[in-house]
């Protein structure tokens, strides 16, 4: 077993373990931190796959953005030290059942499938390539999705502002 594979298993183990902790731990703040670790682990996986750009985006957006947002909202809404309410028993059982069945099914379907890799020459995943394709309208151009997503972000922003704005008391 090479170092690369060892690293992979370590990262994978880390991702799954922290993710599991993130969804099971009782303290909400801890949960957020475990999530953070898990996301960093995913970023590690991207590094491992030599997708540095994606890894960077992962860290910037998730770790720097979303998790911080989440932590803020936790502070806004909750005493972080409190334990969370326990889920109802029956639902937990059913959830475990559903998740296990789902996982088994999915994996049983994925594993035997023989993926046929493309034989074309690989393209370098460089920031330059990504950048030029992102804004290109020609072959492999992603300008349209880019524009769509920008509108989406704009809309989401407006939505957030309207909703989360403090309502003045007399309006109620």
């Amino acid at each position, binding site marked *: 077993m090479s170092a690369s594979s060892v690293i992979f298993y370590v990262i994978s183990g880390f991702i799954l373990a922290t993710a599991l902790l993130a*969804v099971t731990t009782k303290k909400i703040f801890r949960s957020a931190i475990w999530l953070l670790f898990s996301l960093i682990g995913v970023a590690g996986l991207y590094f491992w796959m030599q997708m540095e750009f994606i890894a960077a985006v992962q860290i910037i957006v998730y770790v720097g953005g979303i998790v911080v947002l989440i932590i803020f909202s936790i502070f806004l809404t909750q005493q972080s030290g409190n334990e969370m*309410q326990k889920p109802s028993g029956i639902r937990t059982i059913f959830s475990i059942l559903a998740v296990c069945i789902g996982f088994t099914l999915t*994996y049983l379907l994925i594993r035997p499938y023989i993926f046929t890799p493309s034989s074309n020459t690989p393209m370098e995943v460089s920031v330059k390539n990504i950048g030029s394709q992102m804004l290109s309208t020609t072959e492999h151009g992603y300008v349209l999705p880019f524009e769509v997503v920008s509108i989406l972000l704009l809309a989401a922003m407006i*939505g957030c502002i309207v909703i989360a704005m403090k309502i003045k008391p007399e309006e109620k």
Partner: protein
Amino acid sequence: MSEIPLSHILLVSTALFFIGMYGLFTRRNMITMLMSVELILNSVNINFIAFNKYLYPDKLDGVFFTVFIITIAAAEAAVAIAIIINLYRSHQSIDVEDAGEMKF
């Protein structure tokens, strides 16, 4: 990297997917539900990157998809958090069980 078969990576992503799903099913706190959703999206991202890397390295479809998913995840999280905050103002709780006023 090449010694690791694709299916192992897919195993990880699938596991992550269902861990996220488990969280979504069982977490009573709205914010933790949101976190579970992020896990799910991450698992999909791993899928895309792995497929792109292992199978179709000639194009960057998977990579781009991942980028857009990450963006959307951010937007979604933002809106969701805004809604949760709004909900918290009226319910004084972010327990999802309390948000079951409309039923049957």
